[in-house]
């Protein structure tokens, strides 16, 4: 491959580094109005009445709307392609503003004003009268008898969905397996462990806050410019929320400063549109603060997992069981998809001899809404599997690395439920690579029998990850290519650049397939639903794989069209080509070709003899080779692509604007995998963990852009580091009020907390990927936390079951273990 696999500098690097790239807020028109949202100050109840008298008196206030004014339309917010099957549709459980308050911070009214200060002043003066119910912040409370249903109309028991999955046959049960194993191996030869592991509610902490601005265009289109990952889905959900036909909505997505799944939800776009409509279609901007973003948009699910394992005393893994409860908060958002995903990977990752059983439940609670976040339930799943794996080894005494190599999902694995295959299996190679890098065996030996208050430990964790969402959900993507007169082109993807580098890798793919070089490919970074072809957007680890297939297919079509035209030019006297400036060039090319291939007649020149290389029409290398002739690029070059493009545009004989547009419905999927190895130091009396060395090894197929891939891994590792050691959104269980919805008290690791992050890849050419590639976007965020947890276990013998492993939790555990 010529371009794929090269470290192309990001196509948006200069614009972003110089600050000249335009983001949503940079595009606002003059005279825009500013909106602010009034959030409930109770966690559970009903809004009875508003007194707006004082608020309306504030100079500069234009309009105040409340939950009593919004359309009576319930809508879903998940960034899933809408399902035309009723059973698979996302849950429509909220309105633009809600009378029924379901968490502390629910959206109940909004102010539109001439400036932000006036809007803020008015907010403070709105008086709200509530009928209050007891907050039900925890899963336990939400499921307790007599708990208020948060969505009386949809779920009387607060359970969004419960599901049951098995490996080892549909009737497999862990209990039965224990009985059978007792008989088969003898009671004294088996062990059962039963643990409860917990993961925290996490905030995405994307740099750019959710911001949008909306106006009604002169043709009646409700137009919203928004920082979103999913413009086409925002379009359909906004139409549902407003109760208008979907064609009335137009979404524009410029550059965005990160999303990590939070912007894979419809957030405040419907409200923003509604506010503009309420002020005669004037432009209104709605920027959510960091505090609102953390508590009022979406979070990663806190999931409690009761995990059991059955194994022989010599370490043969027989069966496992997970009972997972996901705290989904006030609204369904992605519903049960995330907890179900967590359960699927739990059962897939290890090859239990007898089977595995998973029970998952997703529960409404009166707390911030959980939705999509990078790796979609799998960081939780891997926290469970990897804590469990090391806890097993801690009993059997087996080396955790050896245990995994022996017990993990094996080559040729196919998920029996979804039929998703592991087409290229790099998991064991990753383990081998990580083991070697960290000097696992030497360190495990050196770190034995430590006595000091500062101890070292090494730990590891493995994972697997599904690249796209097929067959669970629709995978469709579109691409358009438009040739310019100079042989350059516009590349229009329905897929979205959200900071991850999508535009750059699509440019590389387009170059690879069309023969047009990267510097002549102008990718249109903005998605505008009025002009951009359909793609469901940036989520899962899908775009390089799913949208990449569309890009490849489109590139092939464009190439085919160009070559067809090239053959036509060579065969026919186009528009009396002898009169054009290209006459001699084309004549020379024709002669060269005829002599090289021994062709007598012009009409024998066929497109399959031609190719595009390095922006030129050339004789196809393979065609020559088949005929025993080997020629370099210069000898095969017929004429520049610009000659063809210019002719095609303006030919009086055959004018053709050469373009291509395709939609690709992807019906493939494949597992990616990998692992993390961490070497840490624990200062026990201070409960401080310092990561001395850490490496992620990824089996993600062929890398389109290795440098970008490495950066992608760095970002993910940093997220998992935070999940492991410091990040958690805390909620007061009595009131439902968030304690730390700001970046001072919500502890994402700073540069000073982050070690050098090492990255390794095992590159296997996946037959299902457009260029041999598979998932990489999300996997990096999965394994670091459990690897650190297991390193702490190695260092101190203390098994931490709850993430994050904060100093306070560590000190408590070390005291209980009488280590300090």
């Amino acid at each position, binding site marked *: 491959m010529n371009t794929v696999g090269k470290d192309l500098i990001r196509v948006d690097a200069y614009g972003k580094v110089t600050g000249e790239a335009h983001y949503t807020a940079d595009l606002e028109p003059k005279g825009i109005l500013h909106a602010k949202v009034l959030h409930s100050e109770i966690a559970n109840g009903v809004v009875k009445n508003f007194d707006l008298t004082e608020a309306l008196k504030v100079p500069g206030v234009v309009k105040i709307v409340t939950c009593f004014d919004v359309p009576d339309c319930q809508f879903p917010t998940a960034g899933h392609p809408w399902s035309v099957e009723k059973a698979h549709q996302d849950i429509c459980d909220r309105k633009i503003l809600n009378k029924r308050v379901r968490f502390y911070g629910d959206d109940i009214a909004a102010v539109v004003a001439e*400036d*932000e*200060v006036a809007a*803020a*002043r008015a907010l*403070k003066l709105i008086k709200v009268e509530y009928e209050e119910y007891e907050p039900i912040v925890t899963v336990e409370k939400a499921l307790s008898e007599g708990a208020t249903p948060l969505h009386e109309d949809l779920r009387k028991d607060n359970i969004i969905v419960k599901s049951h999955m098995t490996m080892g046959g549909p009737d497999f049960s862990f209990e039965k397996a224990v009985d059978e194993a007792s008989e088969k191996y003898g009671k004294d030869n088996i062990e059962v462990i039963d643990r409860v592991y917990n993961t925290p509610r996490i905030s995405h902490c994307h740099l750019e806050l959710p911001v949008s601005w909306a106006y009604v265009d002169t043709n009646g289109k409700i137009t919203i410019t928004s920082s979103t990952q999913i413009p086409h889905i925002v379009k359909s959900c906004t139409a549902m929320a407003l109760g208008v036909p979907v064609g009335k909505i137009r979404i524009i997505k410029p550059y965005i400063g990160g999303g990590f799944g939070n912007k894979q939800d419809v957030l405040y776009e419907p409200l923003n549109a509604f506010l503009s409509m309420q002020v005669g279609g004037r432009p209104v901007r709605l920027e959510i603060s960091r505090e609102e973003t953390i508590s009022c948009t979406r979070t990663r699910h806190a999931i409690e997992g009761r995990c059991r394992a059955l194994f022989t005393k010599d370490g043969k893994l027989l069966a496992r069981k997970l009972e997972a409860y996901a705290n989904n908060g006030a609204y369904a958002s992605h519903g049960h998809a995330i907890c179900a995903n967590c359960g699927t990977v739990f059962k897939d990752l290890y090859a239990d001899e007898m089977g595995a059983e998973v029970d998952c439940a997703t529960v409404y609670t009166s707390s911030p809404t959980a939705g999509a976040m990078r790796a979609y339930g799998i960081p939780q799943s891997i926290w469970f599997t990897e804590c469990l794996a090391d806890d097993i080894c801690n009993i059997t005494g087996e080396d955790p690395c050896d245990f995994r190599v022996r017990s993990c999902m094996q080559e040729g694995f196919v998920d029996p439920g979804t039929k998703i295959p592991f087409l290229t299996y790099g998991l064991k190679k990753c383990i081998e690579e990580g083991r070697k890098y960290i*000097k696992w065996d*030497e*360190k495990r030996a*050196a*770190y034995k029998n*430590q*006595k*000091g*208050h*500062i*101890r*070292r430990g090494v730990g590891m964790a493995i994972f697997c990850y599904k690249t796209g969402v097929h067959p669970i959900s629709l995978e469709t993507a579109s691409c358009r290519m438009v040739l310019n007169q100079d042989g350059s082109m516009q590349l229009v993807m329905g897929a979205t650049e959200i900071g991850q580098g999508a535009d750059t890798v699509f440019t590389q793919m387009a170059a690879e397939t069309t023969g047009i070089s990267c510097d002549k490919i102008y990718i249109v970074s903005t998605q505008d639903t009025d002009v951009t072809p359909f793609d469901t957007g940036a989520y899962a680890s899908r775009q390089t794989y799913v949208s990449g297939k569309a890009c490849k297919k489109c590139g092939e079509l464009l190439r085919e069209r160009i070559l067809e035209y090239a053959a036509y030019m060579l065969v026919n006297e186009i528009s009396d080509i002898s009169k054009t400036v290209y006459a001699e060039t084309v004549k020379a090319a024709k002669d060269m070709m005829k002599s090289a291939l021994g062709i007598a007649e012009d009409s024998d020149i066929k497109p399959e003899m031609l190719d595009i290389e390095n922006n030129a029409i050339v004789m196809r290398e393979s065609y020559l080779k088949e005929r025993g002739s080997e020629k370099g690029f210069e000898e095969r070059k017929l004429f520049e692509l610009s000659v063809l493009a210019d002719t095609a545009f303006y030919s009086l004989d055959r004018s053709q604007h050469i373009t291509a547009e395709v939609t690709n419905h992807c019906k493939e999927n494949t597992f990616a995998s990998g692992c993390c190895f961490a070497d840490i130091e624990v200062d026990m*009396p*201070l409960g401080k963990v310092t990561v001395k060395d850490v490496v992620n090894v990824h089996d993600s197929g062929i890398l389109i852009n290795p440098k970008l891939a490495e950066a992608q891994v760095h970002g993910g590792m940093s997220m998992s580091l935070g999940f492991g050691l*410091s990040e958690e959104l*805390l909620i*007061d269980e009595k009131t439902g009020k968030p*304690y*730390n919805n700001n*970046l*001072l*008290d919500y*502890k994402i*690791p*700073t*540069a*000073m*907390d982050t070690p050098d992050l090492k990255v390794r890849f095992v590159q296997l050419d996946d037959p299902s990927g457009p260029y041999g590639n598979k998932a990489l976007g999300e996997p990096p965020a999965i394994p670091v936390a459990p690897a650190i947890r297991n390193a702490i276990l190695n260092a101190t013998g203390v098994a931490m079951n709850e993430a994050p492993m*904060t*100093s*306070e939790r560590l*000190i*408590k555990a070390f*005291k209980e273990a*009488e*280590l*300090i």
Partner: protein
Amino acid sequence: MFDIKSFYEATSVADAIRALKADEDAELISGGTDVLIRLREGKKADLSLVSIHNIAELKKIEKDACGNIIIGAGASFSDITNNEIIKEGANVLGEAADTVGGPQIRNVGTIGGNICNGATSADTASTLLSFDAAVVLEGPEGVREVAVREFYCGPGKTVRRHDEVCTSFKIKNEEWEGFEGHYIKYGKRNAMEIATLGCVVRVKLSADKKYIEDARLAFGVAGPTPLRCLKAEAAVKGMSVSDADIYEKLATTALTEVNPRSSWRASKEFRLQLISELSKRALREAILKSGADEDKVAPLPYKGEENDTESAGEVR
């Protein structure tokens, strides 16, 4: 966009006092790293600000004829850290100032704001307290000096009157000369952090560097206001640096003098553990910085390490 009613740039301390007197709702602003945060959070709105940011005399750091160190209230954290007088006489204050927030905050935030904000967590507060420094306040009635130990009257509350400007801090010669100190900021992360606990130990060793002649111990967040442990200081006075009991003595006595509370940020038990551990570690560091021979300084006592102090070591 901040909800600011008016902004007045004072030309001198007297001008600032006049402006404050004229508007009883007006607030002082210098670096703005606390005031603007309160404004953004909506805790303050429609605020009149009197800026002392550009008053050059407030930024001076100097030593007077008696060897007292005078630190202008408008000196930024990075000014303090990089100042030669501070490095020579109160290096530990410079080190404490260097733990505040991040580099941008340290370049604009001032020591005056850090102290007058009234927070127990202020990194320079516990350190200044250990120096028994005086806060110099200037108001319509003239200049007065208040000891830092008497300056705080509760969380976020100080004795500074509305129309007083804090102009400087004074560290007496006998409070710094011959001392070396160590500050440990304990936060949940290594930057952009407010102390979960701040601990400063300063010691003056005997000429032969074998005995603790004098000691200071102060904490931030060990109580509602910065707090000094006089009994703990007295307990180690005169003890040998080779005596392993110095650590336990300091820490256990300190525990009788502190009053940390439980909050969602940290439990009382957790803070007590930190108070004990950090005071020991800071004491050892302060002794080492004072020039004591490392071999002669007692090691920190840890469980299981009495006979075996070997750690795992590096695997290369």
